[in-house]
Structure formats: structure tokens, C-alpha cells
């Protein structure tokens, strides 16, 4: 932990929080390598390491942080994911579903010409392809500099955690409880297939999630009524239609409830084309007239900071206006809390090359049922005003992972 390289967006509060925590703990500042500089070839990892005096054979700890909340980075990643982007052999190797074609691909030129529009979802699958390619390059470059490079979270794991289709498979294979999957992505090419599968499987209530969305982005709580034929999609997704070009999708702040198939169909189709995970909508436990799920941070194999997201809507999420509550305020039975922590620890253990993740854990209405994991967020350590043993999540990581390398996953 003595020396650390952070690949992130330097202006982001994540980077600032991390540096403050290092200062508090008495560690030198981490060397920050901006995503944008890497993507624009202004600097390479090797050059950054050299500038930081880290080419002396002692491998630093490498931390990848969230690439989000920066439009320039987003645009560069979409360009890097373009079919005509310059790339090397094996650049797509970390993408769990990289063999699938992205819908309506954008050329490097088209991607580079994108203008920022608030809330707009430009091209999630191509963005993820670009990010996967960047991760592959960084993994290769770090491996060349330091044969035993110590990634806090390995690039391969980050790609896998980012893709909810892959996360489901990895967790299930590791024996971690997850909500039932409706069907494999291959079996759900479009709206009609989804609808028919739900009806035939009698799984009338599902969450359809953009495979690479984060937070509430690209999440639809979707239900069909076998009695009346009605359907209902609750989501922050919306779109504008055009005569001369495909619809443009964007996120809105307030949840919308769509009951019109003519609106639901294009949303579902768009999600499925970009890659989506469809799973059972497990009825969440309630606190009063609101329901909740839990973000449980796991660091070095141990559950630490946690917060419940409490909401009157089906989509509980930190980025919506959900309220937050502590485990104490929820007054969940000790056994339930214990099972929740174990469940989150098991989820991170399914990624043996990673040390930090925010695990979204769902506790069902029947508290006797085991909790299940609905998401693994490799950058899930940004938790405002949440302390564990008196420390924020960053300071905790510095101390917990700081005592030599033994705690750090390899």
C-alpha cells in the first residue's frame, strides 16, 4: 500500500477521497493516471510509473477506479470500442460476451463527434467494448513492467463484474445465491422472445437490466399480467423517436411507468440488443411502507461498510432519490445480518483476483430465505458518510489492505 497507482478520473471525488484517506493514514499520495490521458495516448502506464519512480522492480499496488462521470472519457471509450479502432490481437479477450456484435456500431469518427447530452445513453455495448479493450491493454502493459503486478481488482475481474450476464454465471458457479435467471441471453433476442418466455416460464415479474449499466441506469422492473394481458415497465429509461434516424435513449431522474406496449417494446428491444440480463423480481423485504436492498462493501474478504437503500419504488438505488438507512435503523435480526454479510463475502470470493467490491444484496420478504446477490460493483466503495469502526471506506481499505501484501488478492 506504500506505493499506489490509481487509474481514474482525477477530478472525481473518488480520487480526492482516496488521496485524503492516504494522507490520514500517513501514506504518500497515489500516482494518479488519468483515463483521458491514457485514452488519448498522452501518457502510458510505463511512463506514469517512471515519473513516479516505480520502475525499480518493486511492484506498486494498482487500483482501477470508475471511468464514469466524465463525458470526454466516455466518448474516447466509445471510439476505442468502434469496429475501425486501432487495436491489437487479444484486445477483446476480457469481454465476457465480446463475440456478440454491437448494434448499429459507430465509427471512430462518429464516436469522436458525439456531443454531450444530459442523461443520454450513447452506446452502452460499444462503450463497454472500448473499456474492455482498455482494461486488456493495461493488464498487458502492467504485466510487462511488473511480472507480479498487484492489482487491487484484476482487470479481468472488473470486466466480469461489470457485465451482469457474466456476474450471474460466476456467482451461480461459485454457489452464491442469485435471483433465478429467466433465460440465457441467446434465448432472448427481442421483446417477443422475452414476453413469451416470461409467460411460458410463469415468471411474470422480472428485472431486465442493461448488462453493463451501473446503478439504476438501464434497469426495468417489468411485469406482465397473465389474467388481463396488461404489462407494466417501471424504469428511468426514456427515448425520443425520429423519422430519419433510430430512437435516442436517455435516463430521466423520475421513474416512469409505461403500460403501452408500443413504448415498452422499443425499450426492451434496445436493452436486449445491447446485452441485458433478465432475472426474477424477488419480492424485497419491507421497512414500513418502503422496501430496501443493501449495498455491502467487502474488503480483503471481509464485509465492512454497509448501507440500505430504502424506497417506495421497485428500483432502490443510490442515484435515485432513495433514502438510506443503516443496519441498526433497519433493526434486522442478527442472523439475517450475519447471513447478508456472509453472502456478500462469498460473492467477492468468487473473484479471487479482487480485493474490493460493493455487493448489492437482496433480502426477500421471507426473512428465513437466504439473501441473494443482485450486483457486484467493482467500484462500489464510494459510500458517503458511512463509517465502519470509525473509518470511511477509503481509510478502511488503506489500513485493512495496508499491512503488507498478504491480504491482497493475487
Amino acid at each position: 500500500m506504500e506505493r499506489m497507482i490509481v487509474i481514474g478520473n482525477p477530478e472525481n471525488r473518488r480520487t480526492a477521497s482516496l488521496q485524503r484517506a492516504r494522507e490520514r493514514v500517513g501514506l504518500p499520495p497515489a500516482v494518479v493516471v488519468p483515463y483521458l490521458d491514457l485514452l488519448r495516448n498522452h501518457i502510458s502506464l510505463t511512463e506514469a510509473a517512471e515519473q513516479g519512480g516505480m520502475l525499480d522492480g518493486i511492484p506498486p499496488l494498482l487500483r482501477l477506479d470508475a471511468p464514469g462521470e466524465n463525458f470526454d472519457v466516455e466518448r474516447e471509450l466509445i471510439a476505442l470500442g468502434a469496429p475501425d479502432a486501432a487495436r491489437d490481437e487479444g484486445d477483446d479477450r476480457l469481454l465476457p460476451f465480446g463475440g456478440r456484435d454491437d448494434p448499429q456500431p459507430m465509427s471512430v469518427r462518429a464516436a469522436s463527434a458525439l456531443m454531450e447530452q444530459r442523461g443520454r445513453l450513447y452506446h452502452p455495448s460499444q462503450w463497454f467494448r472500448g473499456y474492455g479493450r482498455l482494461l486488456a491493454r493495461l493488464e498487458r502493459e502492467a504485466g510487462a513492467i511488473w511480472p507480479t503486478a498487484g492489482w487491487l481488482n484484476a482487470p479481468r475481474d472488473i470486466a466480469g463484474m461489470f457485465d451482469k450476464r457474466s456476474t450471474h454465471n460466476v456467482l451461480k458457479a461459485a454457489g452464491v445465491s442469485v435471483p433465478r435467471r429467466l433465460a440465457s441471453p441467446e434465448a432472448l433476442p427481442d421483446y417477443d422472445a422475452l414476453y413469451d418466455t416470461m409467460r411460458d416460464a410463469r415468471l411474470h415479474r422480472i428485472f431486465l437490466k442493461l448488462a453493463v449499466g451501473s446503478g439504476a441506469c438501464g434497469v426495468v422492473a417489468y411485469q406482465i399480467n397473465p389474467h388481463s394481458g396488461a404489462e407494466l415497465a417501471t424504469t428511468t429509461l426514456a427515448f425520443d423517436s425520429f423519422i430519419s434516424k433510430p430512437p435516442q435513449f436517455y435516463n430521466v431522474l423520475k421513474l416512469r411507468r409505461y403500460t403501452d406496449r408500443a413504448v415498452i417494446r422499443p425499450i426492451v428491444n434496445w436493452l436486449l440488443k445491447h446485452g441485458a440480463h433478465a432475472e426474477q423480481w424477488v419480492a424485497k423485504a419491507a421497512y414500513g411502507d418502503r422496501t430496501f436492498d443493501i449495498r455491502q462493501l467487502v474488503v480483503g474478504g471481509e464485509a465492512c461498510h454497509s448501507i440500505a437503500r430504502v424506497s417506495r419504488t421497485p428500483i432502490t438505488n443510490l442515484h435515485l432519490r432513495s433514502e438510506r438507512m443503516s443496519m441498526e435503523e433497519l433493526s434486522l435480526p442478527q442472523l439475517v445480518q450475519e447471513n447478508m454479510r456472509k453472502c456478500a463475502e462469498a460473492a467477492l470470493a468468487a473473484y479471487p483476483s479482487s480485493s474490493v467490491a460493493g455487493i448489492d444484496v437482496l433480502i426477500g420478504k421471507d426473512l428465513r430465505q437466504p439473501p441473494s446477490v443482485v450486483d457486484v460493483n467493482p467500484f462500489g466503495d464510494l459510500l458517503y458518510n458511512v463509517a465502519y469502526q470509525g473509518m470511511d471506506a477509503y481509510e478502511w481499505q488503506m489500513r485493512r489492505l495496508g499491512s503488507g501484501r498478504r491480504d491482497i488478492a493475487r
Partner: protein
Amino acid sequence: MSEMKLTIGYDGYEEGKKMQEMLEELANSPAAKELTSLIIGDWGGSYENDSSEIVETLVRLNGAFPQLRKLFIGDMDGEECEVSWILQSNLAPLLTAYPELLSLTIKGSSQLELEPARHEKLEELVIICGGLNADVITSISGGHFPSLKKLELYLGVDDYGFDGDLETVRPLMETGKFPALTYLGLKNSEIQDEIAIALAQAPILDQLHTLDLSMGTLTDKGAEALLGSDKVQKLQFLNLSHHYLSDGMMKRIEQSGLHADISEQQDSEDEDYRYPVLTE
């Protein structure tokens, strides 16, 4: 006082669990004799199976629950079933079969009927829904509830079943129908102003301690009528929570000496975007 909630989740339902069997099991257990409050939650596929079999079973088993005083049919949240998708049925046979019942709460109004609406001892009737159909309102206003103290109806919006208007609701405001009534809730309504105006001078207010007009689309228009009423002034409690009142009106209410809950002010200036709380 003992309470029991029976519910069947998705897995239980798909495994073939039946609410009728759970009720029989309960009826045959030692707890049945002591049971004072029974809550029926999700009965399994509540959006495709109506509540009629539950009603039939409870009617058949009425001898098993001698102490039962409170009944809730349909206690489920949006995680289990959309309120507007809960399929109810005619629940009136429960009133006949349980003459000692004091409280009945119903959630969901789809296919709901309450005919004949008669009960000598019932003190509390609550219907929670996104839109209450006119037939049920008419059944209640034309019914016989000499002991009813609390009547709380979520009137809702036309998209989810409220097919009436002020004239459908007005008979509920007449005196003489519910001689024991002290709590009247005509709430969660998209015509909350009209209801407030109609109620402001209604003689029934003289017998009430609480008027509940919460969760609806109340604006200054309705509040003005309430403020100008001596009868409203005499109420012990006026619930206006979740409203579209202006800051000025809220201040006037605060200064009026009314015991009113005016929490949860909504901030929509646009008339087209005013909704009650429960509208699905």
C-alpha cells in the same frame, strides 16, 4: 390479542401452495380459538386468482375463529403485486359470516364488490386502492352499518377504477347513514378539492373527530372552503398530508388554530401533473 398473517410468495405459489389449505390448517390449530386478527397477504398469483376462494373458505370456517375481530384481505405491497392488479371478489359474505367482526380492511379494488353491505357491529371499514369503483361506493352508502366509527376510502383515479364523481361520493357525507361515525376518510382522490368543498359545510362534520382528506390532489381551492367552515374548526384532527397547497395557504392553516397535518407538500404548478399518492 393474537394476530396472524398468512402469505404465499412466488415460490410457494409455483410449488402449489394454497391459501385455502393454510386457512384450514390454521382453523385446526390451537391458535384458532384465540385468534383476534387475521391478515391475508398475497394469496399466490393474486393478479390471476381472485379472492373468492378465500372468502368461501373463511365463510365455511367461521366457527373456528370465535374471537376474530379484525380481518385484512389483500395486505401486499408493490414488490408482490401491483395494487391495481390484485383481483378481489364480493367480500360481503365475510360480513354475514362474522357477525362479531369489528374491523375490515381491503386492499385492491379490481373486481371488488360489497353487496349486501350490512353489519351490525363493524366499527372500521378501510379500502386501500388506486381507484374505487362507483358500485362499491354506492353499496357502502346504501348499506347498513349502525356501529361504524371509521370509514376510510381511497377513491383514486379513473385510470385505476374510480368511475364515479362527486355525486357518487356525496351520499357518504349524509348524516343518519352512519350514526356512530367519528372518522371519515375520503382520500387519495383526484377530485380532492370537490370533496373538500362538498364536505366543508356538511352536517356530518358535527359528529366527526377526524376528517381525512390526505394523499389526494388538494389545492388552495379546497383548503379555502375548509378554512371558512366553523364545522371544520371544531374537528379534533384534519389530515391533509400530501397536498398541492401554496406556501401562503399552508401558513394560513397553521395560523388558523386547526389541528391539521399539512406535511408532504407537493411542488407541481401544472394541473396536469397532480396525482394522488396511490395511483396504480
